[in-house]
């Protein structure tokens, strides 16, 4: 391995990090704001902003990475550049919610932050507090270039530890420049390309036609939080239908079936679906040690229109593909192959992604996060009722279905680009997925 002198003001970006930077560039160009996601804590009781803001300020000051931005090194490897004298700036806003607001309306308010671009290229976190008399929502907006879903939860868990005066491990591992093992990277690229050729031969996948994108386009969300009893039922159904612990392919099959029904209702009659699924590649032991940047990779599932009729067959197909992709090491190959894309300037990378995605539109984005890193029962003296992830979805496909768990309960989140599909249809889609999961 080529070892370069380590600078505390520099953190090399992986291929997946650079890919996420490309998506950010593309989303900014198409929708006005970048590749952002929110994590919302639902808290019991009225939360006082004063002490919270004070503690946030102290906590944020410990992380100079929060004011970095992508740059390129003399060796052409992209890196995260941290200023020599970092001055951490971050946004904080407080909002009073109207009492008696429906959950969907509340959600619309909570998603304001994730739909607003950061004001500067070196701003990557924003916090908003929404209060009611008996309930508060603390919403963190994260820049996906710097955090992935688990990293964001870890950041919030660290904040809590900081509040409680516990030691916080500032997880900022040294990342090498990855300028070695080129033959391995090219071979991985060859395997990934061969994998995609199979999909390309089938032509364009089912998916919504994108509306004409002019200026800012926000993401909208539908969230269904299942009760503990409902979640237990879903797990039992997954055990029985897909196999022990195979909740992910079960949830994917239910999501595909319901989305295919929605496509059929909208008159989208293409014959197959392509679903990129985000997979966290960290081992459990590593999750607690890597807070910043992206440690995910992808898997790609393909389904034919005929698969939808037989739910058992659909589940078996999802499980089979899952097994085959793990066995072939596809996620690892994608991570390695992505290193080759780091040479591309962001503008070019965004254009390349747009061209390749337009040719081969994914039907929807999907992820199942399972139990998160944040598992605290109280935050700042308030009982934590729920934790929701609200991610913006890359365009195309502009539609995503995400599952997370908090406190044993399953959250189903549908994220969609405004104007892509009616709110009523999304509500039906979410209920339909829930029904599939509960009925098994």
């Amino acid at each position, binding site marked *: 391995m080529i070892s370069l002198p380590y600078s505390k003001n520099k953190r090399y970006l992986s291929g997946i990090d650079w890919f996420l930077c490309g998506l950010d560039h593309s989303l900014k160009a198409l929708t006005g704001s970048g590749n952002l996601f929110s994590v919302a804590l639902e808290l019991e009781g009225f939360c006082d902003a004063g002490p919270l803001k004070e503690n946030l300020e102290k906590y944020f000051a410990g992380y100079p990475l929060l004011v970095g931005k992508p740059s390129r090194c003399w060796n052409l490897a992209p890196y995260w550049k941290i200023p020599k004298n970092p001055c951490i700036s971050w946004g904080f806003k407080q909002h009073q919610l109207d009492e008696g607001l429906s959950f969907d309306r509340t959600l619309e308010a909570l998603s304001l932050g994730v739909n607003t671009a950061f004001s500067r290229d070196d701003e990557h976190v924003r916090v908003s507090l929404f209060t009611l008399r008996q309930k508060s929502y603390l919403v963190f907006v994260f820049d996906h270039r710097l955090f992935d879903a688990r990293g964001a939860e870890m950041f919030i868990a660290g904040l809590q530890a900081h509040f409680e005066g516990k030691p916080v491990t500032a997880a900022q591992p040294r990342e090498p420049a990855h300028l070695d093992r080129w033959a391995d990277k090219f071979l991985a690229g060859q395997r990934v390309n061969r994998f995609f050729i199979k999909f390309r031969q089938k032509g364009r996948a089912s998916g919504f036609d994108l509306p004409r994108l002019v200026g800012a386009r926000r993401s909208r969300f539908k969230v269904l939080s299942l009760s503990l009893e409902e979640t237990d039922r879903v797990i039992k159904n997954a055990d029985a239908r897909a*196999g*022990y*612990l195979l909740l*992910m392919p079960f949830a994917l099959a239910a999501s595909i079936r319901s989305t295919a029904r929605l496509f059929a209702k909208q008159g989208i009659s293409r014959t197959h679906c392509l679903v990129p699924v985000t997979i966290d590649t960290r081992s459990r*032991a590593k999750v607690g040690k890597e807070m910043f940047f992206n440690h995910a990779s992808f898997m790609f599932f393909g389904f034919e229109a005929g698969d939808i009729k037989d739910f058992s067959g659909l589940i078996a197909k999802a*499980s089979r593909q899952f097994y085959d992709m*793990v066995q072939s090491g596809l996620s690892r190959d994608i991570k390695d192959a992505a290193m080759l894309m780091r040479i591309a300037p962001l503008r070019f990378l965004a254009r390349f992604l747009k061209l390749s995605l337009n040719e081969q539109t994914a039907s929807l984005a999907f992820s199942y996060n399972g139990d998160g890193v944040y598992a605290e029962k109280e935050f700042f003296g308030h009982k934590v009722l729920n934790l929701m992830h609200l991610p913006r979805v890359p365009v195309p496909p502009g539609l995503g279905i995400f599952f997370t768990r908090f406190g044993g309960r399953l959250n189903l989140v549908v994220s969609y680009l405004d104007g892509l599909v009616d709110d009523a249809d999304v509500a039906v889609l979410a209920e339909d997925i829930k029904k599939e999961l509960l009925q098994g």
Partner: protein
Amino acid sequence: MPKTNKEIETVLVKEVAVILGEEPAAIAADRPLAELGIDSLSFVELLVAIEKNFGLKLMESGLTKEDFRTLRSLANRIVAGLK
């Protein structure tokens, strides 16, 4: 190839330790897999490791909760499958 329950259990503990990024000593063979922190992805990684080590495709032969409750019960399932 390991053949006794104990030998198979040792191989499974080592594989799970690699998958979870833990030391083998931290993996108890009598703890439920879900409690060890195994999720859908790590479970499939374990199935792939079983195929590699023992030539058994458990994904295709049915995955009952009882067989997979702990690494010990899984070792018993593998012994039965190898006979």
